[in-house]
């Protein structure tokens, strides 16, 4: 009885110390004690983030072999390579919480772990490569900048590194759009069409309105999250509208209007039915993206096994030599 009480009060003391530390703005390192709910929240968020980077390679990879110039191919390939690298840092950062990459991939395959909904939309023309870089990476940056100061140190370090690369991606995507808007009639149509299709899903990347957002209270108290979904979405809209105007693209929202009093743009209603439908698995590419990942993973199993077998054989040999 005494023992149980001791454990309970010890746990309470640790929790109090943890909360105090977080409130003081100190970073939490992997070796530090942390409540189980904090660890779980981070694993969910970081693995989802890692999977998003990796699944995001698919819609962009769709245009690699058809890039219209050598320079365009180089920029796109390097960008996708960056995204794969982000996936790797984030898997490693999540591994510091006591989960392996293998387990995270299993959770992706069995539907327990998610990835960003945006990648369930198809990339149909070359202009989509511009739109993804400009809008999707642009929205990701807004989110990630605010995560640079997140309380879990390995996550925050990964974000600092990732953000530098993301702003390149955003600029390069914008450059593709700008170039196309100065091009032929067909190119301008293609660019506007991509804008029309990617604008609303990009706004949905920030998640539900604050009034409908689950999981948020703990995330704020623990300083994992530092700005609300609506604050971040507003920031993205305000910076993007002007960029669109400069190159002659129209934002596909008739209700979009500058609000002088608030000092920001008012925008139309987001189609949350669509958002929820796609999240539940019924988007244009949900099945395709996950099937692709599963198939590649299964097809590559023999390669990973070969590397493992080779390593084990030669480990034994070098041990025998000693």
């Amino acid at each position, binding site marked *: 009885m005494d023992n149980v009480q001791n454990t309970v009060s010890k746990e309470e003391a640790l929790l109090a110390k943890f909360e105090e530390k977080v409130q003081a703005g100190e970073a939490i390192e992997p070796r530090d004690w942390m409540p189980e709910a904090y660890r779980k929240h981070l694993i969910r968020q970081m693995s989802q983030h890692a999977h998003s980077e990796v699944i995001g390679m698919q819609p962009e*990879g769709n245009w690699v072999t058809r890039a*219209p110039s050598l320079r365009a*191919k180089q920029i796109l390939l390097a960008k996708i390579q960056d995204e794969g690298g982000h996936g790797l840092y984030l898997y490693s950062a999540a591994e510091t919480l006591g989960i392996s990459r293998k387990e995270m991939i299993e959770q992706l395959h069995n539907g327990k772990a998610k990835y960003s909904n945006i990648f369930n939309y198809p990339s149909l023309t*070359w202009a989509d490569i511009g739109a993804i870089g400009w809008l999707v990476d642009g929205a990701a940056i807004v989110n990630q900048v605010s995560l640079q100061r997140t309380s879990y140190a390995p996550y925050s370090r990964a974000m600092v590194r990732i953000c530098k690369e993301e702003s390149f991606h955003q600029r390069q995507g914008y450059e593709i759009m700008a170039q196309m808007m100065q*091009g*032929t009639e067909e190119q301008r149509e293609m660019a506007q069409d991509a804008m029309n299709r990617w604008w609303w899903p990009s706004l949905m990347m920030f998640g539900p309105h604050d009034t409908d957002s689950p999981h948020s209270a703990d995330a704020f108290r623990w300083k994992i999250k530092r700005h609300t979904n609506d604050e971040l979405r507003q920031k993205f809209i305000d910076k993007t509208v002007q960029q669109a105007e400069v190159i002659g693209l129209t934002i596909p929202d008739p209700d979009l209007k500058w609000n002088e009093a608030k000092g920001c743009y008012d925008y139309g209603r987001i189609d949350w039915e669509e958002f929820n439908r796609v999240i539940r698995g019924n988007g244009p590419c949900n099945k395709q993206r996950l099937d*692709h990942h599963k198939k590649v993973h299964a097809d590559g199993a*023999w390669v*990973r*096994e070969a590397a493992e077998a080779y390593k084990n054989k030669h480990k034994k040999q070098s041990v025998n030599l000693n």
Partner: protein
Amino acid sequence: MAKQDALFKYTLRLGDNALILSQRLSEWCSYAPLIEEDLALTNLSLDMIGRAQALLKYAGEIEGMGKTEDTLAFRRSERQYYNNLLVEQPNGDFAFTMARQLFISAFELYFYSEMEHSKDKTFAAIAAKTLKEVKYHLEHAKDWVIRMGDGTGESHYRIQHAVNELWMYTGELFEMDDVDKDLIEQGIATDLDAIRPLWNKYIGDVLETAALIVPENGYMQTGSRKGIHTEHLGHLLCEMQYLQRAYPDAKW
């Protein structure tokens, strides 16, 4: 043969090898057996795009008809490409891709080691840069071929199969015609007869370490020096050139 004409064809040959193999490797994007390999294959592809740009730009200058590296990459038809048949072969499985890479990177290592001393300054400069990259490509391919050869029963079977299937495309790497003879005399091109034994020795050693059998030298496929390719090239170009062909007036 006029010197400019020989030099133009020779430059295209080198540029096309880099261009076509970069395209093949880029097809692995999001398809590799682990992310680390996805990134590594992308690296190889990026190196080769860089090399293709430099060589095709130079080819355009030699020809003097105002063609850029992009015109040469995206607006020629099947019969105007001079890359080796080996590099246009489809990726197949990972073993196939690595066997192809081992064969071509070993060739390029010896080839560009000679070319570094070419009297043509542009070639010498491109060779120096390429060599640094090719050393890494070769190490990477060699490590994987050995791992697969000495890994599991399945991996051993797959890599041996890939080596056997691709062997008939290796003879063509060393073919020489009037273009080579002209340019060798001028101290510009690499003598392929001289590097052949080095390649044989290197490949023999790697395959032996990997516990793999070196195939018999049977019939060797040929044709690329005359712009005659396997059926695979047409499909590759169709995909690669799609936007440039569909929107000929557009700039991207």
